[in-house]
């Protein structure tokens, strides 16, 4: 019983954390909360199933293709739904444009791929030992992502430019940084991370168009609780959420777990709107 809570809870938590990081990367680049985070996760699983099960591709090739698709879709998101509404960001039109785009992609997936959840193939051709690969794959992906982002931000010039934009896009532009191109790159990275989350989590979550809404919500909970923009908060929050949810599911059933998560989410936000670890946002005048 405990083993199921820990293994599944941590694994699903890692997927939530990755979706949370997807939210964060897009938010840092543009101050936009995008509904496409869950969509990217959903597509990671669905596209993986299409490439491996339907087209018979090798798992490694499929992974590369899925991540490339994620990057392209990330960039489409930026060009189509974010860039045109950035100048009036106060009106929050990005909520509508990203929602519309996510719904369109979801509906196309439902029609072209089917509304039935499909099993996702085993990726690594090894016998499952004490821990099944569907559990350690998301955790591995989460660790790789964190380390990768950290190296990118601290060790590379472009990464520092990302940080500069996230800190203060005005000043960054004044320094002559190509803000638009950097933002596009950030959305591509977000696309890769979201797709990776979906791909590595799909043996648990299955390839299913309905995962979009689930990941949108459960991926947002850790960032809302951990503070928007904080990747550390997203990872801690995501893993905690996964464990909490799975423990509640095993002990009381799935329905009660969903209600418990929702209540915790609302209560925390009412008491601390900026999240448990977040900072108060600045003024707007």
């Amino acid at each position: 019983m405990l083993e199921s809570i820990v293994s599944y809870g941590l694994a699903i938590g890692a997927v939530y954390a990755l979706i949370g990081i997807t939210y964060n990367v897009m938010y840092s680049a543009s101050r936009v909360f995008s509904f496409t985070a869950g969509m990217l996760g959903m597509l990671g699983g669905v596209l993986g199933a299409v490439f491996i099960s339907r087209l018979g591709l090798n798992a490694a090739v499929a992974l590369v293709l899925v991540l490339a698709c994620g990057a392209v879709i990330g960039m489409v998101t930026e060009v189509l739904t974010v860039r045109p509404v950035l100048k009036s960001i106060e009106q929050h039109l990005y909520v509508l444009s990203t929602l519309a785009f996510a719904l369109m992609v979801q509906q196309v997936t439902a029609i072209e791929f089917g509304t039935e959840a499909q099993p996702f193939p085993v990726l690594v051709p090894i016998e499952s030992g004490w821990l099944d690969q569907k559990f350690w794959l998301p955790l591995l992906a989460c660790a790789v992502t964190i380390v990768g982002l950290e190296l990118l931000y601290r060790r590379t010039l472009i990464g520092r430019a990302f940080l500069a934009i996230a800190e203060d896009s005005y000043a960054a532009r004044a320094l002559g940084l190509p803000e638009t191109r950097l933002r596009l790159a950030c959305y591509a990275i977000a696309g890769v991370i979201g797709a990776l989350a979906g791909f590595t989590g799909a043996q648990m979550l299955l390839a299913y168009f309905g995962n979009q809404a689930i990941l949108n919500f459960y991926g947002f909970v850790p960032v809302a609780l951990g503070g928007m923009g904080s990747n550390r908060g997203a990872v801690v929050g995501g893993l905690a959420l996964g464990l909490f949810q799975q423990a509640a599911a095993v002990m009381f059933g799935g329905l009660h777990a969903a209600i418990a998560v929702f209540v915790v989410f609302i209560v925390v936000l009412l008491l601390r709107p900026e999240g448990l670890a977040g900072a108060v946002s600045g003024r707007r005048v």
Partner: protein
Amino acid sequence: MSGVASSQRKLMTSLPWLALGLVALLLPLFDDAYVGVIAQRAFIYWILSAGLNLLVGFAGQIAIGWVPMLTLGAYTTAVLTAGTVTEEWNAYLALAAGGVVGAVFGVIIGLPALRLRTFYFAMTTLGFTTITTQVALAWKSVTGGGVGTPGPVFPWPFEPGWGFYYLCLLLAAVATWMTANVGASRFGRALIALRDAEVAAEASGIAKPRLLVLIFLLAGALGGVAGGLFASLQSYITPDAFSFEMSVLFFIAILIGGRGSILGPALGTIILTALPEFAAPLVQWSTFLYAALLLLIVLIIPGGIAALLDFSNRRPLPQHREILPQPSLLRAVLGRQQAPQQLDLRGIELHFGGVRAIDGIDVSIKGGEVHGLIGPNGSGKTTTLNVISGYYRPTAGTLSLDGGALAAEAPPLRAAHRIARTFQTPRLIGDVSVLENVMIGGTLDGRASFVESLLTLPRHRADEVTLRAAGLQALAAVGLDALAEVRADRLQHSELRFMEIARALMLRPAFLLLDEPAAGLSAEEIRRLGALIKAISREGVAVLLVEHHADLIFDICDHVTVLNLGKVLAAGTPAEIRSHREVVSAYLGA
């Protein structure tokens, strides 16, 4: 002047409603029950959407998942009427109970929106949509679980069939009437102001939480009532009847209709309800089409159907318009001034982390005087203004009005002290008229309560007449009366600056804080602006003028304070400042 124009406008806005009402009343004559069912569905959906429209279209809250209110109302009405849990209730009483339950949950779900950013609220409603359905499934003893429960059957005079049709029509008409009343009241304008120009709304004394709670109550209640009717129309309700797609449909219908409109969303709801019935092959793709439509609307015609129907704002405006302020009208606009008041800043400091944005400044602003605040970029001018407006809590120092302390960090409370302001970038509501933008400034003077406005009781109508007259007068005073009915986003930049002053004047301010009002104006316009500001101060108003145009400052100011690096570099009369050596070398550059 405006009597004919306004009655004509009234006719124009009510004409589509009369046409819709006529069609609705004649429909039963055809006795086609299928059309009847579709129409009942459209009425029921509209009852929910009418309330949601105030929330989404007016207040700009992204309530994607409002179907839970429908679910709650439906189950409340059905369960109470069925008598499985309580005594059997009268169906009409049960319907009212559905409205009450909807209202209560509307507020509960709305609570996070009072403090949280838009997207968080969107997520909350999404999560709540899932939870409601799951609870309905799990709570078998009451809801019947997945098997569901029979819907209520309304007794005489609204029995199933055309009787029920009239009940839906009646309630849809009431919902339309009430939400239209709110929309056209100062509450409706305040909602739009919170949506598009929250900062200006706060400066006008609009308290967001209180107003939003009222709207959540109303939208929840209408959703609940719609749910009760829905349960009766369906004859039997199961949790799977309340899908997320339905939520999306309501939400998109409103945005397609156009934000800030009542007619547009009503048409949007009717179209989206009826369309799938007549375009069966498209049904599979309907969500895709709705979403695509939403994206198009957001990117290309943010005004939706309502903007397409707004013919009066397509007529070209005259070129080469002149802004001719009439300072003689100021006395009437500002009313009888009280004794001049004084605002004192003593030792104000404001630190952001290690940066000292303001580093101990003393300024006094007196009624009847124009006080200029100048200095290079980053010297703390606007920051000082923001401290006075209550946006920042000073790290040290005191802020007092006629000797009494002024609370920090409370922008909406400033209006009550008659402290008005304009902004460096004009804060406007683009898709309503100039007059309505200006009327925002007078929100605080309305006396009718929300309920009085909801029902257009006499006090509400008196408010509207007074506010409209005051708004026109303020516009005439700043020289924009000819543009009163024009949509604000069609104005030129310089006109917007004067519009902001008119909005500030609506507060009948004792203090007027102007943040670079001359930026982007022509020399002639600056001259007229100067005369206007001077005239305002002569009515006893204390004006604080943050400006870069040195000429304007020295022309009209009675007193000038020069800031540099957050400190007062010099203070005195314009003549003294002109001869101040450091100022000349550091700033005036002469």
